[in-house]
Protein backbone atom coordinates (compact mmCIF):
# COMPACT_ATOMS: atom_id res chain seq x y z
CA UNK A 1 0.00 0.00 0.00
CA UNK A 2 2.68 2.44 1.08
CA UNK A 3 4.99 1.20 -1.63
CA UNK A 4 2.30 1.61 -4.24
CA UNK A 5 1.65 5.17 -3.15
CA UNK A 6 5.34 6.00 -3.34
CA UNK A 7 5.61 4.40 -6.77
CA UNK A 8 2.56 6.30 -7.93
CA UNK A 9 4.06 9.54 -6.67
CA UNK A 10 7.36 8.85 -8.42
CA UNK A 11 5.70 7.92 -11.69
CA UNK A 12 3.20 10.78 -11.54
CA UNK A 13 3.59 12.49 -14.93
CA UNK A 14 3.24 16.14 -13.87
CA UNK A 15 6.02 15.64 -11.37
CA UNK A 16 8.33 14.54 -14.15
CA UNK A 17 7.19 17.28 -16.39
CA UNK A 18 7.75 19.83 -13.65
CA UNK A 19 11.19 18.44 -12.96
CA UNK A 20 12.30 18.21 -16.57
CA UNK A 21 10.59 21.34 -17.83
CA UNK A 22 11.11 23.24 -14.61
CA UNK A 23 14.74 22.53 -13.95
CA UNK A 24 16.37 21.64 -17.26
CA UNK A 25 14.18 23.64 -19.62
CA UNK A 26 13.90 26.67 -17.41
CA UNK A 27 17.65 26.63 -16.75
CA UNK A 28 18.33 26.49 -20.48
CA UNK A 29 15.90 29.30 -21.17
CA UNK A 30 17.41 31.36 -18.36
CA UNK A 31 20.87 30.88 -19.85
CA UNK A 32 19.70 31.81 -23.33
CA UNK A 33 17.92 34.84 -21.89
CA UNK A 34 21.04 36.03 -20.05
CA UNK A 35 23.16 35.46 -23.15
CA UNK A 36 20.67 37.27 -25.37
CA UNK A 37 20.44 40.13 -22.88
CA UNK A 38 24.19 40.68 -22.91
CA UNK A 39 24.55 40.12 -26.62
CA UNK A 40 21.61 42.31 -27.65
CA UNK A 41 22.75 45.14 -25.39
CA UNK A 42 26.21 44.84 -26.93
CA UNK A 43 24.78 44.87 -30.45
CA UNK A 44 22.71 47.96 -29.84
CA UNK A 45 25.71 49.69 -28.26
CA UNK A 46 27.87 48.79 -31.31
CA UNK A 47 29.94 46.30 -29.30
CA UNK A 48 30.49 42.59 -29.71
CA UNK A 49 29.61 41.27 -26.30
CA UNK A 50 30.70 37.82 -25.11
CA UNK A 51 32.93 36.33 -27.79
CA UNK A 52 36.21 34.60 -27.02
CA UNK A 53 34.98 31.55 -25.11
CA UNK A 54 33.31 30.15 -28.22
CA UNK A 55 33.43 32.45 -31.25
CA UNK A 56 31.23 30.14 -33.34
CA UNK A 57 28.42 30.04 -30.76
CA UNK A 58 28.61 33.80 -30.30
CA UNK A 59 30.16 33.50 -26.86
CA UNK A 60 27.37 31.40 -25.40
CA UNK A 61 29.89 29.33 -23.43
CA UNK A 62 30.72 32.42 -21.37
CA UNK A 63 27.38 31.97 -19.60
CA UNK A 64 28.33 28.33 -18.90
CA UNK A 65 31.69 29.57 -17.59
CA UNK A 66 29.91 32.05 -15.34
CA UNK A 67 27.75 29.25 -13.95
CA UNK A 68 30.69 26.92 -13.29
CA UNK A 69 32.59 29.76 -11.67
CA UNK A 70 29.69 30.58 -9.38
CA UNK A 71 29.22 26.95 -8.44
CA UNK A 72 32.88 26.39 -7.54
CA UNK A 73 33.43 29.70 -5.80
CA UNK A 74 33.73 30.12 -2.08
CA UNK A 75 30.46 30.74 -0.27
CA UNK A 76 30.86 33.46 2.33
CA UNK A 77 28.46 33.32 5.27
CA UNK A 78 28.85 36.49 7.34
CA UNK A 79 28.70 36.12 11.11
CA UNK A 80 25.87 38.59 11.50
CA UNK A 81 23.32 36.81 9.32
CA UNK A 82 20.46 34.57 10.38
CA UNK A 83 22.11 31.36 9.20
CA UNK A 84 19.10 29.12 8.61
CA UNK A 85 17.12 31.73 6.72
CA UNK A 86 20.22 32.86 4.83
CA UNK A 87 20.98 29.36 3.55
CA UNK A 88 17.47 28.03 3.00
CA UNK A 89 15.73 30.99 1.39
CA UNK A 90 17.53 30.85 -2.00
CA UNK A 91 16.61 27.17 -2.32
CA UNK A 92 13.06 27.94 -1.26
CA UNK A 93 12.88 30.74 -3.83
CA UNK A 94 13.86 28.34 -6.60
CA UNK A 95 11.40 25.66 -5.50
CA UNK A 96 8.51 28.09 -5.09
CA UNK A 97 9.38 29.67 -8.42
CA UNK A 98 9.00 26.37 -10.25
CA UNK A 99 5.77 25.36 -8.47
CA UNK A 100 3.32 27.14 -10.85
CA UNK A 101 4.48 24.88 -13.69
CA UNK A 102 2.55 22.05 -12.02
CA UNK A 103 -0.71 23.87 -12.73
CA UNK A 104 -0.01 25.08 -16.26
CA UNK A 105 -1.15 22.60 -18.92
CA UNK A 106 0.82 22.71 -22.14
CA UNK A 107 -1.51 20.34 -23.99
CA UNK A 108 -5.30 19.84 -23.84
CA UNK A 109 -5.25 16.12 -23.03
CA UNK A 110 -5.76 14.80 -19.54
CA UNK A 111 -3.64 11.81 -20.38
CA UNK A 112 -0.51 13.93 -20.58
CA UNK A 113 -1.45 16.81 -18.30
CA UNK A 114 -3.87 15.74 -15.54
CA UNK A 115 -4.39 19.41 -14.66
CA UNK A 116 -5.91 20.01 -18.08
CA UNK A 117 -9.41 19.32 -16.85
CA UNK A 118 -8.93 21.29 -13.68
CA UNK A 119 -11.08 24.37 -13.25
CA UNK A 120 -9.33 27.40 -11.71
CA UNK A 121 -5.88 26.33 -12.98
CA UNK A 122 -5.12 29.89 -14.09
CA UNK A 123 -6.10 31.24 -10.71
CA UNK A 124 -3.89 28.78 -8.80
CA UNK A 125 -0.92 29.32 -11.11
CA UNK A 126 -1.24 33.09 -10.71
CA UNK A 127 -1.55 32.78 -6.95
CA UNK A 128 1.64 30.70 -6.84
CA UNK A 129 3.59 33.19 -8.95
CA UNK A 130 3.05 35.85 -6.32
CA UNK A 131 4.91 33.87 -3.66
CA UNK A 132 8.62 34.31 -4.61
CA UNK A 133 8.76 38.10 -4.06
CA UNK A 134 7.71 37.54 -0.46
CA UNK A 135 10.69 35.23 -0.06
CA UNK A 136 12.91 37.93 -1.55
CA UNK A 137 11.90 40.13 1.35
CA UNK A 138 12.90 37.31 3.71
CA UNK A 139 16.20 37.07 1.82
CA UNK A 140 17.09 40.67 2.46
CA UNK A 141 15.94 40.52 6.03
CA UNK A 142 18.07 37.43 6.75
CA UNK A 143 21.22 39.17 5.49
CA UNK A 144 20.92 41.87 8.20
CA UNK A 145 22.71 44.38 6.03
CA UNK A 146 21.39 47.86 5.46
CA UNK A 147 21.58 47.61 1.68
CA UNK A 148 19.76 44.28 1.74
CA UNK A 149 17.03 45.66 3.95
CA UNK A 150 16.59 48.73 1.74
CA UNK A 151 16.48 46.48 -1.30
CA UNK A 152 13.85 44.30 0.32
CA UNK A 153 11.85 47.37 1.21
CA UNK A 154 11.93 48.47 -2.43
CA UNK A 155 10.90 44.97 -3.46
CA UNK A 156 7.91 45.11 -1.15
CA UNK A 157 6.87 48.51 -2.56
CA UNK A 158 7.11 47.06 -6.02
CA UNK A 159 5.09 43.96 -5.14
CA UNK A 160 2.31 46.07 -3.70
CA UNK A 161 2.15 48.15 -6.83
CA UNK A 162 2.52 45.56 -9.54
CA UNK A 163 1.21 42.18 -8.42
CA UNK A 164 -2.27 43.67 -8.42
CA UNK A 165 -1.82 44.89 -11.98
CA UNK A 166 -0.39 41.55 -13.09
CA UNK A 167 -3.25 39.55 -11.59
CA UNK A 168 -5.92 41.92 -12.93
CA UNK A 169 -4.44 41.98 -16.41
CA UNK A 170 -3.88 38.25 -16.68
CA UNK A 171 -7.39 37.56 -15.39
CA UNK A 172 -8.90 39.65 -18.20
CA UNK A 173 -8.93 36.65 -20.61
CA UNK A 174 -10.76 34.67 -17.93
CA UNK A 175 -13.40 37.39 -17.91
CA UNK A 176 -13.85 37.32 -21.66
CA UNK A 177 -13.93 33.51 -21.95
CA UNK A 178 -15.97 33.01 -18.76
CA UNK A 179 -13.59 30.35 -17.48
CA UNK A 180 -10.53 29.97 -15.27
CA UNK A 181 -9.44 26.84 -17.07
CA UNK A 182 -6.34 27.52 -19.14
CA UNK A 183 -7.19 24.83 -21.69
CA UNK A 184 -10.62 26.37 -22.22
CA UNK A 185 -9.12 29.83 -22.65
CA UNK A 186 -6.68 28.52 -25.24
CA UNK A 187 -9.32 26.59 -27.14
CA UNK A 188 -11.51 29.71 -27.22
CA UNK A 189 -8.73 31.56 -29.04
CA UNK A 190 -8.53 29.06 -31.92
CA UNK A 191 -7.38 29.68 -34.59
CA UNK A 192 -6.21 33.34 -34.59
CA UNK A 193 -8.63 35.08 -32.26
CA UNK A 194 -5.69 35.77 -29.94
CA UNK A 195 -6.48 37.98 -27.00
CA UNK A 196 -3.30 39.96 -27.54
CA UNK A 197 -4.92 41.19 -30.76
CA UNK A 198 -8.49 41.47 -29.48
CA UNK A 199 -7.51 43.02 -26.14
CA UNK A 200 -4.16 44.82 -26.52
CA UNK A 201 -4.69 46.98 -23.42
CA UNK A 202 -4.71 44.02 -21.05
CA UNK A 203 -1.78 42.48 -22.91
CA UNK A 204 0.28 45.65 -22.54
CA UNK A 205 -0.61 45.96 -18.86
CA UNK A 206 0.32 42.31 -18.26
CA UNK A 207 3.62 42.76 -20.10
CA UNK A 208 4.49 45.86 -18.04
CA UNK A 209 3.49 44.20 -14.81
CA UNK A 210 5.57 41.10 -15.52
CA UNK A 211 8.58 43.24 -16.35
CA UNK A 212 8.14 45.11 -13.12
CA UNK A 213 7.36 42.28 -10.75
CA UNK A 214 10.27 40.14 -11.97
CA UNK A 215 12.52 43.23 -11.79
CA UNK A 216 13.52 42.99 -15.42
CA UNK A 217 15.74 45.68 -16.76
CA UNK A 218 13.86 48.92 -17.12
CA UNK A 219 12.41 48.34 -13.68
CA UNK A 220 15.46 46.80 -12.00
CA UNK A 221 14.67 48.67 -8.83
CA UNK A 222 15.34 46.26 -5.93
CA UNK A 223 18.92 45.51 -7.02
CA UNK A 224 19.72 48.85 -8.62
CA UNK A 225 23.49 48.92 -8.65
CA UNK A 226 24.25 52.54 -8.07
CA UNK A 227 21.91 53.13 -5.18
CA UNK A 228 21.83 49.96 -3.08
CA UNK A 229 24.82 47.75 -3.79
CA UNK A 230 23.06 44.64 -5.05
CA UNK A 231 19.78 45.01 -3.23
CA UNK A 232 18.59 41.96 -1.31
CA UNK A 233 21.45 39.89 -2.76
CA UNK A 234 24.29 42.04 -1.38
CA UNK A 235 25.59 39.43 1.05
CA UNK A 236 25.14 36.43 -1.23
CA UNK A 237 28.13 34.88 -2.95
CA UNK A 238 28.90 31.82 -5.01
CA UNK A 239 26.18 29.28 -5.66
CA UNK A 240 23.62 31.01 -3.44
CA UNK A 241 23.77 34.11 -5.61
CA UNK A 242 23.56 32.00 -8.77
CA UNK A 243 20.35 30.43 -7.41
CA UNK A 244 18.92 33.87 -6.75
CA UNK A 245 19.88 35.25 -10.14
CA UNK A 246 18.60 32.17 -12.00
CA UNK A 247 15.38 32.27 -9.99
CA UNK A 248 14.48 35.68 -11.36
CA UNK A 249 14.90 34.55 -14.97
CA UNK A 250 12.95 31.33 -14.38
CA UNK A 251 10.15 33.34 -12.84
CA UNK A 252 10.05 35.58 -15.88
CA UNK A 253 9.92 32.47 -18.07
CA UNK A 254 6.94 31.08 -16.16
CA UNK A 255 5.08 34.36 -16.46
CA UNK A 256 5.93 34.29 -20.17
CA UNK A 257 4.38 30.81 -20.47
CA UNK A 258 1.19 32.07 -18.84
CA UNK A 259 1.12 35.08 -21.17
CA UNK A 260 1.76 32.86 -24.18
CA UNK A 261 -1.14 30.63 -23.16
CA UNK A 262 -3.77 33.17 -22.27
CA UNK A 263 -2.86 36.04 -24.61
CA UNK A 264 -0.93 34.57 -27.52
CA UNK A 265 -3.19 31.64 -28.08
CA UNK A 266 -1.08 28.87 -26.62
CA UNK A 267 -0.77 26.14 -29.23
CA UNK A 268 -3.40 28.08 -31.17
CA UNK A 269 -3.22 27.74 -34.92
CA UNK A 270 -2.35 24.09 -34.41
CA UNK A 271 -5.02 21.54 -33.44
CA UNK A 272 -3.51 18.84 -31.23
CA UNK A 273 -4.07 15.20 -32.12
CA UNK A 274 -4.30 12.26 -29.78
CA UNK A 275 -1.00 10.38 -29.95
CA UNK A 276 2.00 11.52 -27.84
CA UNK A 277 3.75 13.28 -30.70
CA UNK A 278 0.93 15.40 -32.06
CA UNK A 279 -0.95 15.66 -28.78
CA UNK A 280 1.86 16.40 -26.36
CA UNK A 281 5.21 17.30 -27.90
CA UNK A 282 4.17 19.66 -30.69
CA UNK A 283 1.70 21.79 -28.65
CA UNK A 284 4.20 22.03 -25.79
CA UNK A 285 6.94 23.12 -28.17
CA UNK A 286 4.72 25.76 -29.74
CA UNK A 287 3.90 27.21 -26.32
CA UNK A 288 7.56 27.14 -25.26
CA UNK A 289 8.67 28.90 -28.44
CA UNK A 290 6.06 31.62 -27.92
CA UNK A 291 7.11 32.00 -24.29
CA UNK A 292 10.78 32.19 -25.29
CA UNK A 293 10.01 34.97 -27.74
CA UNK A 294 8.26 36.89 -24.97
CA UNK A 295 11.29 36.40 -22.68
CA UNK A 296 13.70 37.53 -25.39
CA UNK A 297 11.65 40.65 -26.10
CA UNK A 298 11.78 41.42 -22.37
CA UNK A 299 15.54 40.93 -22.44
CA UNK A 300 15.88 43.22 -25.43
CA UNK A 301 14.37 46.12 -23.49
CA UNK A 302 17.57 46.27 -21.45
CA UNK A 303 19.37 47.63 -24.46
CA UNK A 304 16.89 50.45 -25.02
CA UNK A 305 15.74 51.75 -21.67
CA UNK A 306 17.54 53.20 -18.71
CA UNK A 307 16.47 52.24 -15.23
CA UNK A 308 13.54 54.06 -13.66
CA UNK A 309 13.70 55.48 -10.19
CA UNK A 310 11.51 53.94 -7.51
CA UNK A 311 9.11 56.88 -7.44
CA UNK A 312 8.83 56.95 -11.24
CA UNK A 313 8.08 53.23 -11.34
CA UNK A 314 5.45 53.46 -8.61
CA UNK A 315 3.97 56.48 -10.37
CA UNK A 316 3.78 54.48 -13.59
CA UNK A 317 2.21 51.59 -11.70
CA UNK A 318 -0.60 53.47 -10.02
CA UNK A 319 -1.29 56.09 -12.67
CA UNK A 320 -0.61 54.20 -15.88
CA UNK A 321 -0.60 50.44 -15.47
CA UNK A 322 -3.51 50.07 -13.06
CA UNK A 323 -5.97 52.11 -15.20
CA UNK A 324 -4.66 50.21 -18.21
CA UNK A 325 -5.38 46.89 -16.52
CA UNK A 326 -8.84 48.03 -15.44
CA UNK A 327 -9.58 49.23 -18.97
CA UNK A 328 -8.40 45.89 -20.29
CA UNK A 329 -10.69 44.10 -17.86
CA UNK A 330 -13.61 46.27 -18.95
CA UNK A 331 -12.79 45.67 -22.59
CA UNK A 332 -12.70 41.91 -22.02
CA UNK A 333 -16.12 42.07 -20.36
CA UNK A 334 -17.41 43.89 -23.44
CA UNK A 335 -15.85 41.19 -25.59
CA UNK A 336 -17.67 38.52 -23.59
CA UNK A 337 -20.94 40.44 -23.70
CA UNK A 338 -20.82 40.88 -27.46
CA UNK A 339 -19.83 37.23 -27.98
CA UNK A 340 -16.77 38.23 -29.90
CA UNK A 341 -14.81 35.33 -28.48
Amino acid at each position, binding site marked *: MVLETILYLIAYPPLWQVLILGFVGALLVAMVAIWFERK*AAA*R*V*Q*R*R*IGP*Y*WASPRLGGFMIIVADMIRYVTQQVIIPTTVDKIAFLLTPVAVLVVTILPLAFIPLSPHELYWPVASMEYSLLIALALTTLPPLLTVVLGWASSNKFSVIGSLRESYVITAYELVAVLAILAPAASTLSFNIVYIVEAQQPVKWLAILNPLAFLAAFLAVLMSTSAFPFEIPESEHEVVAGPYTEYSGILYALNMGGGYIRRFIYAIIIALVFLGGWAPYTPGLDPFTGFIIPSLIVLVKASIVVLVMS*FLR*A*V*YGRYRLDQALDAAWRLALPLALLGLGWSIILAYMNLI
Partner: protein
Amino acid sequence: MPARVSLKSLKRRGGLFEGIKSNIQALAVGVKYFIDPQRSTLLYPKEYIEHRPGYRGFIVFIKDKCISCAACARICPSAAMKMVRVTEVDPKHPDKPRQKQYPVINYQRCIFCGYCVDICPTEALYHTPFQDVVYESLADMFLTLEAFQLEPGRPSVSEGSPVVYEVDEERGLIKRRR
Protein backbone atom coordinates in the same frame (compact mmCIF):
# COMPACT_ATOMS: atom_id res chain seq x y z
CA MET B 1 18.56 92.19 1.08
CA PRO B 2 19.01 88.67 2.42
CA ALA B 3 19.11 85.99 -0.23
CA ARG B 4 15.91 84.02 -0.34
CA VAL B 5 15.50 80.59 -1.79
CA SER B 6 12.47 80.07 -3.95
CA LEU B 7 11.35 76.63 -5.10
CA LYS B 8 10.38 76.19 -8.69
CA SER B 9 8.15 73.34 -9.74
CA LEU B 10 8.78 71.74 -13.11
CA LYS B 11 5.92 71.06 -15.43
CA ARG B 12 5.45 67.53 -16.72
CA ARG B 13 6.78 67.41 -20.22
CA GLY B 14 4.30 66.29 -22.84
CA GLY B 15 1.19 64.25 -22.33
CA LEU B 16 0.24 60.64 -22.81
CA PHE B 17 0.60 60.93 -26.58
CA GLU B 18 4.09 62.38 -26.26
CA GLY B 19 5.09 59.56 -23.91
CA ILE B 20 3.88 56.85 -26.25
CA LYS B 21 5.60 58.54 -29.19
CA SER B 22 8.96 58.84 -27.47
CA ASN B 23 8.83 55.24 -26.25
CA ILE B 24 8.16 54.02 -29.78
CA GLN B 25 11.00 56.19 -31.07
CA ALA B 26 13.39 54.71 -28.51
CA LEU B 27 12.37 51.18 -29.43
CA ALA B 28 12.77 51.98 -33.11
CA VAL B 29 16.32 53.22 -32.58
CA GLY B 30 17.12 50.10 -30.58
CA VAL B 31 15.73 47.81 -33.27
CA LYS B 32 17.59 49.74 -35.97
CA TYR B 33 20.93 49.27 -34.23
CA PHE B 34 20.04 45.67 -33.40
CA ILE B 35 19.57 44.90 -37.08
CA ASP B 36 22.53 46.94 -38.34
CA PRO B 37 25.00 47.37 -35.48
CA GLN B 38 27.83 49.18 -37.37
CA ARG B 39 30.44 47.86 -35.00
CA SER B 40 34.02 49.02 -34.84
CA THR B 41 35.21 46.82 -31.98
CA LEU B 42 38.82 45.71 -31.86
CA LEU B 43 39.09 41.93 -31.48
CA TYR B 44 42.18 42.43 -29.42
CA PRO B 45 44.42 39.37 -29.50
CA LYS B 46 43.51 38.72 -33.16
CA GLU B 47 43.96 42.36 -34.16
CA TYR B 48 46.02 45.17 -32.75
CA ILE B 49 46.09 48.90 -33.40
CA GLU B 50 49.06 50.14 -35.36
CA HIS B 51 49.69 53.55 -33.89
CA ARG B 52 51.05 56.35 -36.00
CA PRO B 53 54.67 57.48 -35.51
CA GLY B 54 54.88 59.94 -32.65
CA TYR B 55 52.98 57.69 -30.24
CA ARG B 56 54.70 57.76 -26.87
CA GLY B 57 55.22 54.13 -26.06
CA PHE B 58 58.08 52.23 -24.49
CA ILE B 59 61.46 53.98 -24.62
CA VAL B 60 64.56 52.46 -26.19
CA PHE B 61 68.12 53.60 -25.59
CA ILE B 62 70.93 53.72 -28.17
CA LYS B 63 74.16 53.38 -26.24
CA ASP B 64 76.50 54.49 -29.01
CA LYS B 65 74.91 57.92 -29.24
CA CYS B 66 74.86 58.59 -25.50
CA ILE B 67 77.20 61.29 -24.19
CA SER B 68 76.36 60.69 -20.50
CA CYS B 69 75.01 64.19 -19.93
CA ALA B 70 72.31 62.91 -17.53
CA ALA B 71 69.79 65.45 -18.85
CA CYS B 72 67.18 62.72 -19.19
CA ALA B 73 67.54 61.64 -15.58
CA ARG B 74 67.44 65.23 -14.37
CA ILE B 75 64.27 66.17 -16.21
CA CYS B 76 62.34 63.00 -15.36
CA PRO B 77 59.35 64.21 -13.30
CA SER B 78 58.83 60.94 -11.50
CA ALA B 79 62.51 60.04 -10.98
CA ALA B 80 62.08 56.91 -13.08
CA MET B 81 65.35 57.32 -14.94
CA LYS B 82 68.56 56.71 -13.02
CA MET B 83 72.19 56.87 -14.04
CA VAL B 84 74.34 53.78 -13.51
CA ARG B 85 78.14 53.81 -13.53
CA VAL B 86 79.73 51.35 -15.90
CA THR B 87 83.44 50.60 -16.28
CA GLU B 88 84.32 50.57 -19.97
CA VAL B 89 87.48 49.53 -21.72
CA ASP B 90 88.40 51.56 -24.77
CA PRO B 91 89.92 49.30 -27.45
CA LYS B 92 92.54 51.92 -28.26
CA HIS B 93 93.75 52.20 -24.67
CA PRO B 94 93.12 48.79 -23.09
CA ASP B 95 95.18 49.59 -20.02
CA LYS B 96 93.04 52.60 -19.02
CA PRO B 97 89.46 51.56 -18.07
CA ARG B 98 87.07 54.49 -17.95
CA GLN B 99 84.04 55.10 -15.74
CA LYS B 100 80.98 56.07 -17.79
CA GLN B 101 77.36 56.78 -16.85
CA TYR B 102 74.35 55.50 -18.74
CA PRO B 103 70.62 55.86 -18.03
CA VAL B 104 68.41 52.95 -17.03
CA ILE B 105 64.65 53.18 -16.73
CA ASN B 106 62.23 52.02 -14.08
CA TYR B 107 58.87 51.23 -15.69
CA GLN B 108 57.29 50.98 -12.25
CA ARG B 109 57.37 54.78 -12.24
CA CYS B 110 57.65 55.86 -15.85
CA ILE B 111 54.67 57.96 -16.94
CA PHE B 112 55.58 57.97 -20.66
CA CYS B 113 55.65 61.78 -20.82
CA GLY B 114 58.53 61.76 -23.31
CA TYR B 115 60.55 64.56 -21.67
CA CYS B 116 63.69 62.42 -21.73
CA VAL B 117 63.30 61.77 -25.46
CA ASP B 118 62.69 65.45 -26.14
CA ILE B 119 65.62 66.75 -24.15
CA CYS B 120 68.23 64.27 -25.33
CA PRO B 121 70.79 66.35 -27.28
CA THR B 122 72.03 63.44 -29.39
CA GLU B 123 68.73 61.61 -29.92
CA ALA B 124 69.97 58.58 -28.07
CA LEU B 125 66.42 57.75 -26.85
CA TYR B 126 63.35 57.05 -28.96
CA HIS B 127 59.76 55.91 -28.46
CA THR B 128 58.38 52.69 -29.82
CA PRO B 129 54.78 53.08 -31.03
CA PHE B 130 53.18 50.65 -28.58
CA GLN B 131 52.45 50.36 -24.90
CA ASP B 132 50.49 47.11 -24.50
CA VAL B 133 53.05 45.13 -22.54
CA VAL B 134 52.35 43.89 -19.03
CA TYR B 135 54.57 42.33 -16.38
CA GLU B 136 54.05 39.67 -13.76
CA SER B 137 56.73 40.75 -11.32
CA LEU B 138 58.04 44.10 -10.15
CA ALA B 139 61.67 43.06 -10.68
CA ASP B 140 61.18 42.73 -14.45
CA MET B 141 60.10 46.33 -14.72
CA PHE B 142 63.43 47.80 -13.63
CA LEU B 143 65.34 47.40 -16.88
CA THR B 144 69.04 46.69 -16.93
CA LEU B 145 71.31 48.56 -19.30
CA GLU B 146 71.26 45.66 -21.76
CA ALA B 147 67.48 45.31 -21.68
CA PHE B 148 67.04 49.07 -22.12
CA GLN B 149 68.80 48.92 -25.50
CA LEU B 150 66.38 46.34 -26.90
CA GLU B 151 62.83 46.98 -27.98
CA PRO B 152 60.52 45.14 -25.60
CA GLY B 153 58.82 42.12 -27.12
CA ARG B 154 55.28 42.88 -28.27
CA PRO B 155 53.11 39.77 -27.91
CA SER B 156 50.25 41.24 -30.00
CA VAL B 157 52.36 41.20 -33.16
CA SER B 158 52.84 37.44 -33.06
CA GLU B 159 49.14 36.82 -32.34
CA GLY B 160 47.32 39.15 -34.65
CA SER B 161 47.19 41.48 -37.60
CA PRO B 162 47.39 45.28 -37.58
CA VAL B 163 44.40 47.59 -38.02
CA VAL B 164 44.07 51.36 -38.09
CA TYR B 165 41.16 53.50 -36.99
CA GLU B 166 39.87 56.26 -39.20
CA VAL B 167 37.08 58.80 -38.84
CA ASP B 168 34.38 58.43 -41.45
CA GLU B 169 32.07 61.35 -42.21
CA GLU B 170 28.88 59.30 -41.96
CA ARG B 171 29.57 56.32 -39.75
CA GLY B 172 31.96 57.80 -37.23
CA LEU B 173 34.93 55.76 -36.15
CA ILE B 174 35.64 52.84 -38.44
CA LYS B 175 38.19 50.05 -38.35
CA ARG B 176 40.32 49.36 -41.40
CA ARG B 177 42.67 46.45 -41.92
CA ARG B 178 46.15 47.09 -43.16
